[in-house]
């Protein structure tokens, strides 16, 4: 679906955001894009969406070149940015204006999602709370049924019940023809949802792997005392002891802890790259 080869991008020639980036996104997955602030996550999303033009390399989405922004390509994509554009109209009017641009839009699905999220569809969008606005647009985004759905920090502004509804709705809306790419800092919110995981740092992709592959290669444990320091990729103190990440040498499968994985990738980027490439 999304194919990125040797992609380079920078806002100035002296300071590239990323160089030689390679990435493949396959249908049927909810990808989680993780990275620290300034790692280039949003720039990558905008390159995929065609809002930015790569300085080198190639990025294609279903064979389209995104930065040409041709209608045929734009019909296949819905991008939900972190900051939303909300016109001063009701949800009904919003649908009447925007849905026509998306040939696979489903009004029934939209009604279901709005009901699930408990959004008042009769109110003007600008009169809704931030969380309600976000839920209204998430519902619309999902109902467009575009093959590629990109979301930048979708859970920001959502309360705890809404985050759980969000996970439920996303899990039910993924199909074999669709890719959902979610960039987030709130890894705990989406831990059970995103798989595969993409971690970006220092202008490159450190890891792009499914939870099963990660669990096969790494163990996530809580121990009272950290021993065997040379093997530990990352450790952090918690109330229950120490959370550690170590290579999975005894093939005992543990649940992937995204926060530990992310911190381990930032602490030992080369080790993580070698393990997964």
């Amino acid at each position, binding site marked *: 679906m999304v194919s990125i080869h040797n992609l380079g991008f920078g806002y100035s020639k002296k300071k590239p955001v990323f160089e030689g980036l390679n990435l493949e996104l396959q249908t049927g997955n909810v990808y989680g894009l993780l990275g620290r602030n300034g790692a280039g996550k949003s720039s990558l999303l*905008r390159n995929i*969406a*065609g*809002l*930015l*033009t790569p300085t080198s390399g190639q990025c294609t989405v279903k064979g389209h070149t995104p930065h040409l*922004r*041709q*209608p*045929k390509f*734009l*019909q296949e*994509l*819905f*991008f939900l*940015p972190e*900051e*939303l*554009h909300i*016109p*001063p*109209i009701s949800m009904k*009017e919003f649908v*009447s*204006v*925007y849905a*026509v*641009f*998306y040939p696979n839009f489903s009004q029934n699905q939209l009604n279901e999602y709005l009901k699930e999220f408990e959004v008042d569809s009769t109110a003007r969008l600008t009169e809704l709370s931030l969380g309600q606005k976000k839920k209204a647009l998430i519902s619309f985004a999902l109902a467009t049924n575009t093959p590629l759905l990109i979301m930048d920090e979708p859970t920001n502004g959502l309360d705890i019940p809404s985050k759980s509804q969000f996970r439920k709705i996303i899990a039910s809306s993924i199909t074999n023809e669709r890719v959902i790419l979610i960039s987030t800092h709130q890894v705990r919110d989406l831990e059970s949802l995103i798989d595969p995981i993409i971690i970006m740092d220092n202008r490159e992709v450190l890891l792009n792997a499914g939870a099963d592959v990660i669990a096969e290669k790494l163990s996530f444990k809580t121990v009272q005392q950290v021993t065997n320091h040379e093997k530990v990729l990352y450790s952090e103190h918690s109330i229950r002891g120490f959370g550690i990440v170590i290579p999975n040498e005894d093939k005992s499968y543990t649940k992937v802890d995204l926060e530990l994985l992310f911190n381990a990738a930032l602490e030992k980027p080369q080790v993580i790259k070698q393990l997964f490439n």
Partner: protein
Amino acid sequence: MNQTLDIQRLGWLIKRIWVENRKLFGMTYVVMVLLCIATYYLGRDADGAIVDRDIRFGSLIVGMFGLGVLFANYIFRDFSHTPSTMSYLLLPASHLEKFLSGLFYVLIVYPIVIISTHSLIDYAAFEIIKSSYPNTPMERTIISYSELFETYFSVQDTRFLNGITILTNFWTFTIMGTLFFQRLSLIKTAFLGFSSIAIIAWLEYLMFHYIIGDLNNNISFNAEKDSFLTVYITVGIVLLRFVLPLFWLLIAYLKLKEKEV
């Protein structure tokens, strides 16, 4: 599917602008009508009879000129804010369709609405004043439209045509500026516009002063002088009336195509 221009998609984009802005358009229209009526009311002479022709003419040109620039800036305001720019650029329509949908309101709907509304107010004012003061020298129209069409494509130097020329240049220049500048686009565009006018005026002064010199002294025959001035004015008018507005629009369209966020 046509990737450059599809009339159905263009229609959807035009509808989008209308649905999102109709309340504001309506309120602005009412304010505009009230301002025009107030101008006519205050523009009567001491007896309450004639409305000065300059006031009638000025209310059309200044109203269209001033508000038209604001309107042109407003229609392309999506570029003043990153989320709205993203939403606009990612709408499944071509750059040309997006551009034309804005131009439809600025260059077609707005002039039609303004001219028809002004004509209606002017007609009503004429009828009211004529019925109360039969001997008032108020003319039925401020300009004959047949005269307008006859002279627009010639080089005749009429005040109305100059007004239209300035208007179209200001509108199209504003559209270009709105696409170029994200923040405070109107102020920056105005600054750029007035700076450009000042530079052009200065260059023209230099050209006449140092290259051509005093026309009366350097060109001995009146025929030569007249011919030079005619060519100079013709080229200037063609540039201002036809070439420059299209040039600003072309630049604006190319900027829209290359816009990144």
